[in-house]
């Protein structure tokens, strides 16, 4: 369906989108580590660790004789609510929590603004959580409305509660790739699908 879509383009922009703590930066780090030998950003159990759009340029992925070069754009998690008091539970001081909340709201706005610039998006969903979440639906719906190709990653399959079938049932019209970005599980299938979508 998307074949030849990006032919002739110099820099494909591959965005990583999803709700907070779904593992977007962990996937970005895995890709960068696998193909550049270095990580892209810091990860944390505290939500909204990534509060700015981060870009890594010219990443070339090679798989089974095929290769593709793109700019990777890791975006802040999209949320509909941000409460500084939620951050206090993670041991942040009130000042730090308020600062984090303020930066996080700006991060959400920036992530949405960047949507229009993307050539392709990896939608990262936490496979241990209910996928019928409005943020997931809004992200995938916006990509469909903008005709942006999307690869859905069911992340955290190393966890006991992971339920890939539920994600497949929620988004039946999309290819869902189960991975554990943290452990590096099933990354071969991920890269194969990524090249297929981008080529």
């Amino acid at each position: 369906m998307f074949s030849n879509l990006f032919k002739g383009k110099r820099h494909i922009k591959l965005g990583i989108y999803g709700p907070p703590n779904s593992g977007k930066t962990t996937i970005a780090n895995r890709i960068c580590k696998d193909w550049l030998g270095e990580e892209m950003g810091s990860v944390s159990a505290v939500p909204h660790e990534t509060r700015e759009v981060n870009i890594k340029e010219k990443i070339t992925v090679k798989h089974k004789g095929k290769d593709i070069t793109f700019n990777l754009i890791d975006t802040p998690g999209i949320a509909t609510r941000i409460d500084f008091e939620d951050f206090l539970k993670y041991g942040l001081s009130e000042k730090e929590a308020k600062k984090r909340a303020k930066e996080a709201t700006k991060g959400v706005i920036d992530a949405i603004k960047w949507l229009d610039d993307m050539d392709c998006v990896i939608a990262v969903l936490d496979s241990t959580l209910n996928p019928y979440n409005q943020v997931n639906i809004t992200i995938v719906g916006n990509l469909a409305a903008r005709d942006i190709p999307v690869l859905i990653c069911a992340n955290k399959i190393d966890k006991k509660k992971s339920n890939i079938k539920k994600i497949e049932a929620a988004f039946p019209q999309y290819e869902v790739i189960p991975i554990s970005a943290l452990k590096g599980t099933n990354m071969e299938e991920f890269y194969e699908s990524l090249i297929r979508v981008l080529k």
Partner: protein
Amino acid sequence: MLTLQIVPYGEIHNLGSDDRIKKLMKIVKDDKIVLMQGRLEPEEETGLIQKTMEEVKKSFRGIEICTIYPEEHSVEIFDKLRSQFAKMLLGNREGITIIGPANIVKEIRRDPNKIQLYTFNKSPRRKRK
């Protein structure tokens, strides 16, 4: 007390995207839960999130939103075309959208066939004798 405000499709049909978002935000910021007939366009949903983020402060911590939409993938092609034509003429009034302020609505859980709306429990203060 929890207030649910019904927003029929006719009330938002003729509004532009910005005005729709403004209208919904006004209701939510009055600490009411919106029950809207139909759904916002995907771009309007992200517009609503952007507007929400711009307005987050100590007294307003965002929204919870949930859209229920009839399944389309199992519908026959003829019915699908007919429904799309109807949407072109009448607008997209199918489904229902629930939007609540995050200080009242803790979570809206949705499975394909049901919605569960969780609110914050505010234990009643005991009066001193």
